[in-house]
């Protein structure tokens, strides 16, 4: 039982990092569907740079930078260029997938020289992640910085009148959020799976997006759902083996079915009244402009 719990925490940490990153982005009113691409690219960048440098912390950093790159393009295209956020995000997910396969292809099969010893310090990780979520909650709901971010996500026009540079805040939140997603991706391989194959981490970005929604855009609830999904992953691991011997493909559906059910429960019950999305989430911000 405790084994399962440890595995759940180890598997859930990358999801937590990614979902907290996406949460910051969405609080500023930017829907970043590039989260999936940033995650997968973060996995590849983290692995490749760890193999090259032999230092897993550099791997985490490079993974984060790779994610931030995706966020920067998303910010430029969907905030500055006012393109549709859904289309821009999906394009960046494809881009991230492609870049991960292109630059990671020569590293398939090369073992990781070093990795993060997460299974020995799992309780520290658990405590740190809860503290981190609390700090983020305090920042978003209690500090002036958080008020600025939320104002841009709730009503960018009023925020603009009050002197907030909406474009700057949104782009910064997207870049910082995507950095965290990238770190989550790198952690996924460096702290959890220790391998690299093409397409590793696919689908995890979407799951962290779903965690943001069921956590009601609230950082305090994010660890709960991240570790719940970690539990599902750990359970899949166990259920494949005897005495259960359940087909791995059937089990592979499980995280997605759980996500779909969780989303539906969240939306169908009064929960959504307490945990509302930012009002301007997904809306492109147009300031009035001169034509001459």
């Amino acid at each position, binding site marked *: 039982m405790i084994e399962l719990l440890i595995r759940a925490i180890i598997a859930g940490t990358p999801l937590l990092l990614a979902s907290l990153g996406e949460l910051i982005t969405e609080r500023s009113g930017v829907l970043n*569907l590039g989260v999936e*691409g940033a995650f997968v690219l973060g996995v590849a960048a983290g692995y490749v740079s760890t193999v090259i440098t032999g230092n897993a912390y550099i791997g985490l950093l490079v993974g984060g930078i790779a994610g931030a790159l995706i966020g920067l*393009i998303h910010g*430029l*295209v969907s905030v*500055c*260029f*006012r*393109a*549709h956020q*859904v*289309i*821009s995000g*999906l*394009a*960046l*997910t*494809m*881009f*991230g*997938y*492609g*870049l*991960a*396969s*292109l*630059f990671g*292809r020569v590293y398939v099969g090369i073992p990781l020289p070093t990795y993060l010893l997460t299974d020995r310090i799992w309780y520290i990780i658990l405590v740190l992640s809860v503290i981190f979520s609390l700090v983020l909650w305090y920042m978003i709901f209690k500090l002036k910085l958080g008020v600025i971010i939320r104002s841009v996500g709730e009503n960018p026009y009023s925020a603009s009148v009050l002197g907030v540079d909406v474009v700057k805040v949104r782009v910064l939140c997207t870049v910082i959020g995507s950095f965290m997603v990238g770190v989550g991706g790198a952690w996924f391989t460096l702290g959890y799976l220790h391998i690299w194959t*093409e*397409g590793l981490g696919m*689908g995890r970005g*979407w799951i962290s*997006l*779903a965690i943001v*929604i069921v956590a009601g855009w609230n950082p305090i609830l994010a660890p709960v759902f991240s570790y719940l999904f970690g539990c599902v992953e750990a359970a899949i691991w166990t259920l494949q083996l005897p005495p259960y011997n359940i*087909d791995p*493909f*059937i089990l*592979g*559906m499980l995280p*997605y*079915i759980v*996500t*779909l059910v969780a*989303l*539906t429960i969240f*939306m*169908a019950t009064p929960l*959504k009244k307490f945990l509302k999305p930012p009002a301007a989430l997904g809306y492109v911000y147009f300031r009035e*402009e*001169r*034509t*001459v």
Partner: protein
Amino acid sequence: MRVSFYIKRRVKPIKYSGIIVPIGSIILALIISSILLLLSNINPLYLYQAIASSAAEYSTLRYSIPLILAGVGLAIAYRANVWNIGSEGQILAGAVITTWLALYILPHEMPSSLALAILYISGFIAGAFLALIPAILKVKFGVNEVLSTLMLNYIMLQLTNYLVYGPWRGLKEYGYPRSDIFPKSMWIPQIPRTSIHYPTLIIAVILSILTFILIYKTKTGYEIRVLGSNPDAAKYSGMNIAKIITIVMLLSGGFAGIAGVGEVAGVHRQLIRAEMVSAGFGYTAIIVAWLAKLNPLVIILTGYFIGILVSASYTLQIFTGVSYGSVNVITGILLISLISLEFLSRYKPVVKIIR
């Protein structure tokens, strides 16, 4: 001294932007992709060689068929601001139902035309059914359709692979993860010496034309466009928004389902691994639809072009050994440059030095 940067709206979009923007974005995408290929030690000339050889070979049309079908379906949904990302899963739904009918349900000695008609219709129904789930979740509970359709893609992918690795694995396939070959009567005929299954192509073109008429000439189409461009107006004028959302989801899922029928009954003649039945066609179709500015007739053209690109990516795989997934770089950049140039054709960035 201060440098100020702002964006100014052009009085009119730049001239011929309808042509310059798509072509410009293709050129820009090829330039950036070449740089990235160079950076990863691949000679970008291989890319151009692959594109040229695919463009010269008209059998590449085989890749355009699913792209056009799924793209037209997506165009209907996107017109209504309904973000169906689930074509990939809906294609697989069509493929799975076809396999089930062809191998286990329909009598093997059946008149071919009747069998194919049944396959196409049930493929449509299967795709539409898979799209109905997110439609209901959205209408009833307000579940975001982007996430629900994505989740269903992964569920269908796993289901398909479960079937070909497990219960449906062919007895004559030497243990490979694929089903038995369909009986001959269930084969969609091809143009000789190519893998272009022309009945599906004809259906795709007809559906594009019908969809054009639906969107621009009918009352439902008008409602779809109003919902897409101004949801408030749609609500206050008393349109049945739930009905429109359901209709567009059913149609776009159904069209993708037909594409799935074509892939298994027209090309492979058996069910194979999900990643090979639909190698990202459902996602690539998003680009096809967007490149055509959601105009169903233009989708025939953009579907043809992107079909060449898909085919080129297989050739590139043989030339250089990069995996099929790497080509996502090109498609991703293409879409990003398209939406960026679209903006720049209407707006002008200005850099001013203020003293």
